[in-house]
């Protein structure tokens, strides 16, 4: 217990030191204050931003696109992944293909999405889904592989039918890995949407950051980064909290 508080304390100290350095370095002229404005200045802009209704609109656009892409990519990717991994023939055909596509950087496809969908809500969503679905599928492969055959054998020898095997063996076995898929999906998804917004859009946090960049408005850019970082960390911690709740069933692998 004591060790846990200790590590938490050390972590806090490191964070405080980083912010301290961020505040101190530009003020002491150790770095160019135009490139790295002091933390206090960035946070003043940040607090202004989060009270600005105009910014709320941009944030809402980004979040809507991210959520829509997420709600499509995760269930579809998980289902496809499970179906492919469960069928030996489909597995042999599609698994390598998914790995091939996964290894290609998704950003180079962005212009094609603009041509296909125009600069629109669905272009962002489609690109978000495209950047996410392969990692979800690959994690679903791992989820299926994490189902132990001896567990299935036990369930069958105690008379479980297919529906019971799915509900009582497959789902609980796969849950921890699928939660991992949810976490990774959100990261890939958010990245995809912001990239699409920075590249070509009329609204959204990515659009704002792009515009600020061209206008050399560094404090604004950094305030935008703080916002995105905060949201990502929040979501990540939320999923990790769920993961910790089912930790005892990862313990016995």
């Amino acid at each position, binding site marked *: 217990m004591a060790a846990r508080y200790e590590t938490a304390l050390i972590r806090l100290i490191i964070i405080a030191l980083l912010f301290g350095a961020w505040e101190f370095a530009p003020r002491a002229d150790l770095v160019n204050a135009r490139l790295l404005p002091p933390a206090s200045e960035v946070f003043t802009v940040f607090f202004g931003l989060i009270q600005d209704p105009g910014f709320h609109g941009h944030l809402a656009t980004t979040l809507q696109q991210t959520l829509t892409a997420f709600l499509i990519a995760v269930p579809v990717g998980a289902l496809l992944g499970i179906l492919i991994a469960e069928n030996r023939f489909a597995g042999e055909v599609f698994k390598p293909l998914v790995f091939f596509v996964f290894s290609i950087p998704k950003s180079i496809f962005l212009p094609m999405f603009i041509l296909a969908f125009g600069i629109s809500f669905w272009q962002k969503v489609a690109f978000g889904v495209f950047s996410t679905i392969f990692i979800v599928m690959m994690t679903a492969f791992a989820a299926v592989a994490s189902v132990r055959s*001896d567990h299935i*054998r*036990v369930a*069958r*020898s105690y008379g479980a039918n297919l529906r*019971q095997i799915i509900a009582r063996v497959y789902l609980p076995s796969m849950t921890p890995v699928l939660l991992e898929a949810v976490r990774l999906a959100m990261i890939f998804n958010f990245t995809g949407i912001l990239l699409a917004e920075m590249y070509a859009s009329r609204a959204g946090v990515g659009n704002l950051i792009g515009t600020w960049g061209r206008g050399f408005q560094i404090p604004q850019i950094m305030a935008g980064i703080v916002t995105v970082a905060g949201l990502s960390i929040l979501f990540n911690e939320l999923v990790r909290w769920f993961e910790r709740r089912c930790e005892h*069933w990862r*313990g*016995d*692998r």
Partner: protein
Amino acid sequence: MNKDVSGTIQVEGVSHTFVSNGEKTHALDNVSFEVPKNRFVSIVGPSGCGKSSLLMMLAGLQTPDEGRIICEGKKITRPDPQRIGVVFQEASLFPWLTAEKNVEFPLSLRGVKPAVRHDRAREALALVGLEGFGSRYPHELSGGMKQRVSIARGLVQDPPILMMDEPFAALDEQTRTVMGDELLRIWEQTRKTILFVTHSLGEAVYLADQVLVMSARPGRIIDRIDVDLPRPRRFEMMSTQPFMELRERIWRQIRH
């Protein structure tokens, strides 16, 4: 013809060939034996002698090509956990369930009421010496305790027959010895018919009334040895002349 068939197993002329990776393997060749009620029978044989195939058939998870297996006068065609409880080599507990919920699992598959399930699981856990451990998760239990939970799961429906597939193979020597004695205690208490597959010749002799010796592939029963050592069995018996003679007799059969 009102013969009492409860707790009996008859294996009649079972032969089986399975195909994996395009290669045919002749696993079992005309295997026949009978296990009377309340008897403790061990099966030993070299690796790959078709013991696991035989067990899969007894568990109703595989159908033999030829011959039949009759359990309590009824041919086995599918899993029948209320007649045969199974315990596997790895305890194979579900890590997301507590010990008690693991034991309840066979009952919950049949839709037994939670209150009844709970009582039966507690009784079964008490029987295997795990009273008060019901709320532990498998990763909080030692190897021996896990295997006890697995035995409790096999016994929770009170089946007349218990089938065990090298249940103590993964345990260290000391725990294994303790578990053997524990199993004998449970057997004395419940009077189940037990079919016990093992690699260990000593374990086979120490526990059983009869030892069936199987040959290498294709598996055949090459000897049936009645163990007439007195019960209760004691650890010291393992160094007595009759025990060692029985052990040697088995060893001579499977050595070649």
